[in-house]
């Protein structure tokens, strides 16, 4: 069985092309301690299980396609082809527009450099290891911050959803905490957490926990009462109620929160790296900007986008797998 085929059976169409890229990106960092640990957890969760269910879903997809054929006038092969190529197509279009802007000299090249010069800088900074170094730092900050932030946000959300008075008590605190600009507490941050990755992780945690918390509350409130009754009359323990009902029922909303959080985590890491500029992609961008090295700024920005995109893709992938029951029958 060829690689590609296998992929399509397991993954939402469209992922099969971006995934190798993303995985390559992530695997390049395999040497980095923290990152590796975090990723291998994600991998074990997100990769092994779909393999086990690969056989099951393959035939389903065929049936899906057959039904699709009856429903749509246009060729499903064409459609599938477009979906597979979609992300690449988008990137291609962006690059073409970009090249167009450059060639037409709409903006001076120090504002919008040529794609070629950015690619060149990209290759250079990969070769001398700088890009991967900074990427690994930001990746660590993002992943660790995301894990902690999601843990705090979802626990707090869980508690608030169950003890509504806490919402009244805590919301002023939480919203205030969330809306305080980073520079206002930057001195305390550096005082308490130093100027390396810890302080950045804290910023990621602060930005990430809020949407996670809110979506947890929304998810838990959406659990149908009828299902709660079923668990109640079976005398489920709190923990069983949580793991077997609330978590799976809230999952759709939680995963959306996670998609938002993952992207915000990258922003948070960058904000932190601007506060005390030393390492990480944000710092790289800040320094490149200060050195008027626009191609390097672009390389940094593109790397950040790829990082955010791979986290987003990871969650989409998780979503596709965890919510597979939704694809069968009416809900």
């Amino acid at each position, binding site marked *: 069985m060829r690689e590609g085929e296998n992929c399509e059976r397991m993954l939402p169409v469209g992922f099969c092309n971006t995934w190798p890229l993303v995985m390559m990106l992530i695997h390049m960092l395999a040497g980095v301690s923290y990152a590796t640990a975090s990723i291998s957890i994600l991998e074990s969760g997100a990769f092994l299980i779909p393999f086990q269910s690969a056989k099951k879903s393959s035939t389903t997809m065929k049936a899906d396609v057959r039904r699709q054929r009856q429903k749509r006038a246009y060729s499903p092969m064409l459609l599938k082809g477009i979906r597979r190529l979609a992300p690449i197509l988008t990137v291609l279009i962006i690059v073409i527009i970009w090249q167009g802007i450059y060639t037409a000299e709409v903006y001076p090249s120090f*504002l919008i450099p040529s794609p070629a010069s950015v690619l060149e800088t990209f290759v250079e900074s990969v070769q001398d290891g700088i890009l991967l170094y900074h990427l690994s730092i930001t990746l660590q900050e993002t992943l660790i911050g995301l894990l902690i932030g999601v843990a705090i946000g979802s626990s707090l959300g869980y508690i608030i959803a169950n003890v509504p008075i806490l919402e009244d008590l805590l919301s002023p605190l939480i919203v205030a905490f969330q809306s305080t600009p980073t*520079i206002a507490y930057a001195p305390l941050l550096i*005082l308490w957490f130093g100027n390396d990755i810890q302080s950045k992780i804290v910023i990621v945690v602060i930005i990430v926990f809020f949407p996670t918390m809110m979506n947890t509350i929304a998810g838990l409130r959406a659990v149908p009462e009828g299902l709660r009754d079923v668990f109640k009359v079976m005398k489920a323990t709190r923990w069983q109620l949580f793991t077997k009902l609330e978590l799976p029922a809230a999952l759709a909303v939680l995963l959306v929160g996670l998609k938002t959080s993952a992207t915000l985590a990258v922003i948070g890491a960058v904000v932190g790296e601007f506060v*005390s500029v030393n390492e990480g992609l944000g710092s790289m961008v800040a320094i490149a900007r200060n050195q008027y090295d626009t191609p390097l700024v672009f390389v940094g920005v593109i790397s950040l986008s790829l990082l955010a995109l791979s986290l987003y893709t990871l969650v989409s992938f998780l979503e596709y797998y965890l919510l597979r029951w939704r694809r069968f029958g009416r809900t």
Partner: protein
Amino acid sequence: AQDDLEDERFLLTFVPNIQFSPLYVAIEQGYAEDAGYNLTIEYLNEPDVVDLVAAGQANFGMVSGEQVITAVSRQRPIVYVYEWFQQYPVGVVLDAASDITQVSDLAGKRIGLPGRFGASYSGLTTLLTANDMSERDVELQEIGYVAPDVFCTGGAVDAVVVYLNNEPLQIQLRADAGDCADVESVRVFPVAESTDLVANGIITSTELLERDPNHVSAIVMAFDHGLRDVINNPARAYLLSEAYVEGLPLSDELREALNTLADEQDAFLADQPTREDIIASRSAMLETLQSTIADPAELIQFQVLLASINLWDADQLGYSDMASWEAMQTTLIELGSLDDAIDLEGIFTNQFVDETD
């Protein structure tokens, strides 16, 4: 007459600040209008200032010298037309009671700076190099723009790289209030004492310089006029800056004192005093104020202004020296911000300075 005025954007860095009083005075006293321009001021990050001037979106900006070299090396078509800070404004501050009495004592110490970029990094590197040291001999800590806070909380760093006209005063103020760890007074190692580096000045685009040098000259001269006014009469300048700098300390008491001082200074200036006399008059001003105003925090911004003036004042305002550019370029190459030396001839001009004298 208002209708004939041409709109002109002047881009400054950071935030509204008493240090920018020369420009405020140039506007308030009508020097810009006299030259035919309606100046508006915007505050942006330094690279944005450079890029917007280079792109022709604004004609003038105020940036530090090393930014000009780096930017020109990266194809920004800008020229440096007026050196505003005659002395490089960066230095290292530390506890006067510490065992660090000279720059070489910094070896092995923890030095805080915003980050490995910008004027403070160039300044520190130059200072170390001039004393036969390098970055490897000290322990750098990137702490962002919170130097006084980190320094005064104690324990985290032994010294901090700062702008000389502001942070040392803030730290001293806290030390005087007993609020700065064990520090009672501070010692400063100015970069300028060991090396003459090109510092902040006015930039414009090469295109404008070629197309309409009179335009550039008019703005530069208006600024020059403002700068001279500030140097000569800081009390007046302080009062004129009120509308520009939000939160500028100005109690009724201080306002009254400054007004009196400003009027007295005008009278004093009418006698054509020497530069030395004027320097002395500025010190006298501070003493007078300190004797009338009880709260030292009320005077801190005025002190910042005086400290800034010390960095601006020179025999020939606006003039920049090739040597200071070369020294800066050497530092940048050492830092790796610059790959190869560039032609420094075209990157600055003193042509408008000569006119003013």
